[in-house]
């Protein structure tokens, strides 16, 4: 049970200070979640914190590889216009 940050991450620092488990680090080329520490915020918050502030659709995925913020969910753009999902 852990989330993962993928290459779409823009290294904006939004998630890092919010993680209740200090599982996130400012790694290169993009921020990383240490799987062993990530609890998906269960027991700490109602919503996973990293995924709740992340501005980039698709940048954080669950254990099954599914984006927590799928295309269109943050920008309101239809998927075919979304620069995040198409790049």
């Amino acid at each position: 049970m852990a989330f993962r940050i993928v290459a779409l991450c823009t290294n904006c620092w939004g998630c890092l200070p919010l993680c209740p488990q200090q599982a996130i680090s400012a790694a290169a080329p993009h921020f990383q979640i240490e799987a062993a520490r990530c609890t998906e915020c269960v027991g700490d918050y109602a919503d996973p914190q990293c995924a709740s502030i992340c501005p980039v659709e698709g940048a954080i995925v669950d254990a099954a590889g599914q984006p927590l913020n799928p295309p269109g969910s943050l920008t309101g753009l239809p998927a075919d216009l979304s620069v995040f999902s198409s790049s």
Partner: protein
Amino acid sequence: METTSQPTSTGARIALHPCYSEQAHRHFARLHLAVAPSCNIQCHYCNRKYDCSNESRPGVVSEVLNPEQAVQKALAVGAAIPHLAVVGVAGPGDPLANPERLFATFRALAAKAPDLTLCVSTNGLALPEQVDELVKYRIGHVTITINCLDPDIGARIYPWIFWNHRRIRGRKAAEILIAQQQQGLAMLVERGILVKVNSVLIPGVNDEHLREVHRAVTAKGAFLHNIMPLIARPEHGTYFGLTGQPEPSAEQLRTLQTACADEGGATGMMNHCQQCRADAVGLIGQDRGAEFSMEKVAATTVDWQAAVAKRTAVRAAIERRIALHSQLHHPTPLAPSSAQRPRAARGEPLRIAVASNDGRTVDAHFGHAREFLVFDVSPMGARLAERRALDRYCSGPVTCGDAAPALTGAVAALHDCTILLCARIGFEPWRALEDAAISPNSERAGEPIIDALLAVYAEWRDRLQGAAPPAGDALCA
């Protein structure tokens, strides 16, 4: 109302600030430190994914700095540019969404560059909780971006906010944001901090509504209201850019600014804003960011105490020059014209636009002009009516594809002018201007603006009515 008509104390506090004072922006430099990467809201006109060095607009930076780097950069810039007066944090995210980074930077600068004015520009969401911390760091000025008071309008501008550990969407998000902004504004004013309000004019979304915003922020004690045009191009990858949301025309913007100015009240209107990048360096309208990359900054050693002394001396010299200048030429400050002028006819002032980069001579190529100086010329002399910024987005049309929209924009910005003076102009823009009944003229290239204006006015009058050349009063541009 002009900013300089504020009470003396406020006047003195803004006199050195290039973003607030029309006078200061020609003399004093500012530095934006990109130390705040994170944001707690999403705006439909923002996409921080891109870094394009040819782009100049808020929210765009080349490299995000950590606080140590930011301090190093500010000290290096402050040593190299002694007319530096202001260090601001404007992003690329929201400064107050990065409080530790922001305050670590300000703490160090307050110690090593105590003469520099510090300021922040925020969306206001975290403002109420940060106000007392802000006050500690000698923050004299805060800018809040307030685009609406009505949450239904807000829901069309802000898709979400991050609030109390949750992502909140739609009307509810806008409601919270608006309440926080208004509370933050009141708290700052109560503590004697000068507040400028920025509003983005979004046609069809908040255009009419911004007059109400103007009244509200005036009532709450903002000292300046800066209405800026929406920047929305598909290539920026923003929601508004990709969904075809139109940008306002120069005319629309001016009409609204005029309407707000006509409301009266103590809040000034600002219209020399250039919508800088969040890492801009130098005089406004100029960006020397490339000279101060972290790589270059890291290789320089700075004697910060010597730099403070040098800046203090340079500032005193500039202040003397401004004072002398205003005694000689501007018993009252230059105010932008509030009235729309019809095309000049016999006996009326002639409106002439000048493409100038140095502000003194006709030295700019039409296609490279960053702004036009718009003068009203009459037998009494010439008067600077307005500065019109344009082509804020791109310095390289060759790399940015089709330049036609930029040309159309430039022509539209000059619609009420009869003559355009520039150093050079291409065939296509020449024809576009003539089609719009504006006469381009590059014969005065390199001449002082005042000489060129009066000479061209004399020629125009001679042609129109065979009258003698005007007795030209002196002016300064």
